[in-house]
């Protein structure tokens, strides 16, 4: 059936092309090739279209902000994240101001100065003052963004810790995540791919005394309000540990250990009460209900955000942020590496 419809479609396309060719041939014969000169009428039509479509585009951007603005991630669930969000808002404000000034001017000028017979353009080749003006203004705006941006970046990358951060190893492999807690000593035991065997999927070196109390888990639990230093490893290809709700991301690079530190500021239970999150969950569940899928409840997630192979699109892990007591209780239930191996 589909083969027939494809053949029919192809025949129709060929017929259309032949007809169009005939028509344009006849019309170009009539006009003796003059149909390709841009006439005043063309300038009017195209100039008006510039105005209509151009402004239509600008308006549709406003509409998109209104309709899809709610899709953005909810408020940041980490301490540093709110600073990123403020910087984001300022940058967005600046670029939107420029956008909503420059685009309308562009399309308006295209319309306003559309060609008319008998008029001559103004010979205006340069104006140093004007050019200096629009070199300096962007430079000033950028100076603000650069200085603030670098400030946020350096506090984020080189955090000053009042208390010792909890060490958590995030381990990536095609196509899943595993986490390792450092246990009571807050030291992660040495691990290498050469030790991977049987149940020891992370290659923890059991000869290292620091390894014994390490805890391996398939769900990432974090205590709220405590700085957590993540150490990332990968055993095969590059993965990227992306924590969108915490405004955190770091690549996991085979052969190296990378790191990122953040302090979760909102527990899972709290964020589920957030209005944006509630709306989001409600919307998603309506869609899922219509498709006959399970009800979903919001969880923070860890995603892979660096192409890593066939199942890259489904490499994830739930993150649960809880109070310190809940976290400690959960940790106690977990078996140590020494117990499992």
């Amino acid at each position, binding site marked *: 059936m589909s083969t027939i419809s494809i053949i029919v479609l192809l025949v129709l396309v060929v017929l259309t*092309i032949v007809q*169009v*060719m005939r028509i344009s041939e006849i019309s170009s014969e009539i006009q003796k*090739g003059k149909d*390709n000169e*841009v006439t005043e009428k063309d300038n009017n039509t*195209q100039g008006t279209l*510039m105005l209509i*479509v151009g402004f239509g*585009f600008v308006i549709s951007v406003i509409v998109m902000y209104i309709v*899809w603005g709610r*899709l953005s991630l909810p408020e940041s669930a980490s301490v540093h994240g709110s600073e*990123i969000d403020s*910087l984001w808002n300022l*940058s967005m404000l600046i*670029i939107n101001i420029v956008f909503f000034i*420059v*685009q309308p001017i*562009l399309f308006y*000028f295209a319309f306003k*100065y559309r*060609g*008319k017979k008998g008029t*001559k353009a*103004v*010979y205006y*080749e340069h*104006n140093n003052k004007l*050019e200096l003006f629009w*070199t300096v203004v962007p*430079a000033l705006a950028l100076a603000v963004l650069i200085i603030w*941006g*670098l400030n946020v*970046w*350096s506090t*984020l990358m080189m955090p000053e810790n009042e208390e010792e951060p909890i060490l958590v190893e995030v381990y990536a*492999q095609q196509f899943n995540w595993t986490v390792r807690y450092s246990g009571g000593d807050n030291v992660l035991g040495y691990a290498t*791919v050469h030790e991977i065997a049987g149940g020891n999927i992370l*290659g923890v070196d059991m000869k290292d005394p620091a390894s014994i109390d390490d805890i391996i888990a398939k769900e990432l639990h974090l205590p709220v309000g405590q700085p957590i230093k993540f150490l990332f490893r990968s*055993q*095969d*290809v590059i993965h990227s540990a992306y924590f*969108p709700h915490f*405004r*955190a991301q770091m690549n996991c690079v085979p052969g*190296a250990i990378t790191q990122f530190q953040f302090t979760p500021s909102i527990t899972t239970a709290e964020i589920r009460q957030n209005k944006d999150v509630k709306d*989001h969950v409600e919307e*998603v569940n309506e*869609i*899922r209900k219509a498709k006959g899928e399970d009800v979903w409840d919001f969880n923070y*997630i860890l*995603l892979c*955000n*660096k*192409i*890593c192979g*066939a*199942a*890259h*699109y489904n490499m994830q892990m739930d993150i649960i942020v809880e109070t310190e007591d809940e976290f400690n209780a959960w940790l106690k239930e977990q078996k140590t590496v020494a117990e499992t191996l």
Partner: protein
Amino acid sequence: MSTTSTTKNNHFQDHLMEEHHKETFVSKYIFSLDHKMIGKQFLITGMIMGIIGVMMSMLFRLELAYPEQSFPILEFFLGKWAPDGVMDPNIYLALVTIHGTIMVFFVLTAGLSGTFSNLLIPLQIGARDMASGFMNALSYWFFFVSSVIMVASLFVEAGPAAAGWTVYPPLSALPQAMPGSGMGMTLWLISMTLFIVSSLLGSLNYIVTVMNMRTKGMTMTRLPLTIWAFLTTAVLGVLSFPVLLSAALLLMFDRMLGTSFYLSDIFIGGEVLSYSGGSPVLYQHLFWFLGHPEVYIILLPALGISSEVIATNSRKPIFGYRAMVGSILAIAFLSFIVWGHHMFITGMNPFLGSVFTFTTLLIAIPSAVKAFNYITTLWKGNIQFTPAMLFSIGLVSTFVTGGLTGVILGDSALDINVHDTYFVVAHFHIVMGLSAIFGMYAGVYHWFPKMYGRMMNKSMGYAHFWLTFITAYGVFFPMHFLGMAGLPRRYYSNTAFPMFDNLADINILITYFAIIGGSAQLIFIFNFFYSIWRGPKATQNPWRANSLEWTTPVEHVHGNWPGDVPVVHRWAYDYSKPGAEEDFVPQNVPLAEGEESGH
């Protein structure tokens, strides 16, 4: 001096007369050494690659709108890789990878620079041909073979390369990591190696030609902005492509000879591999040392073309010629010291991140100057809306829209949360993809009469522009919102995350725009080929432009000008000059008595 050059010209003409009759089909259309023919060869090859690249994007857009659903058309095109019409995740990644490779390198580098640098450099500077016609032909044939190999890699048993167009190792180095990293990846590397050779041969030729073969009076500050753009592009290519070549060679060594430049401590397929001591991040440094200048290798020719088209059709001098040249040079210089902004979250030293943030955001300044100068060129113009002019104005719009989000992505702190999301996809498709493709279309519509001696159909050009412009924004603007919702790129399907369920409608909308927009390109292809044979005959200077290419006869001759090469007396932008009778004064017209030379 002038006597010798005239004698030389006479010799050249005699030579031409003798040669003229000996031309065969093969020497004229296939192994041609004439820059005009080579330009056309690049264009047609680039267009064929473009059709393949765009069709791929339509296939994976279909998959993204209706993930894991069955479509007979997918099985028709992909065969065993879409069993029962459902696309395989590996082939999704392969399509994304080859789409990126083809569009970035084969269409927007070779197709754009190859076509217009070849066609316009000799014509606009007043040269008989390129410095080395043979090298020029060689450049095309390396490109051709490279294209054939890239297309051939689509038919390899395990599928073509699929590690993303940046082919980061270890994913691209290990066949165990994904099927595409076997034979497909080997062919990818061979194809790219040949491509780089082609690019270097072309670029060296462009540089030498512009530096040495300008006609009398064609000083550097009288060059049309197209030539400035092509020259700068060629310099960027010569300085950065060799680094990609070395990256590719080292990757080949790792794959075939067991070296460990990029690989270390890998456990895959149940065993530890013997690689030790390498770093995948090294590859990224080498790749992006080309990769970022590459963005401007793509963009600058488009900006050059649009400068020319906007000035000609506004019937006004380009505003701020020197600032335009200065910003081209500034952008080119900065493009070499910003590559690290692709690598903020690779675990690179955070201090380096700070440096790259600083240099990256600086690029916004010359870019802003260019955008404002375009707009001021329109101001009080007498705009003639040719299809080329429409595409050029479209370019200014996309350049501004896409450039602005660069301010966000270039900021390391902000990049953390949108890195590798659809926000990035939106950004680079708008600022680089759309702007460059609009520039390329503007170039084709504008110089078609120079290439084929006929005019393209205007009405089809208008229809093509509006459909393309509207659908292009329709495809890429909504992607910003997907990115801000945290949706990663290169996901075969978003169904594994309930959190993204409410983005499905946007994905469907985007796909509709993509299919309409992709189909609209058929109008262009039809118009192009139809006009080659059936378009109305062009006059010598259909757009009433100033630059030298319009002083050549409509019918091509070897050596471009049947008589002497014209001498240049003024810059290329004396449009609507007070005192002049017409609203344009070609470059070869001497200054009138008492006339001040422009700019």
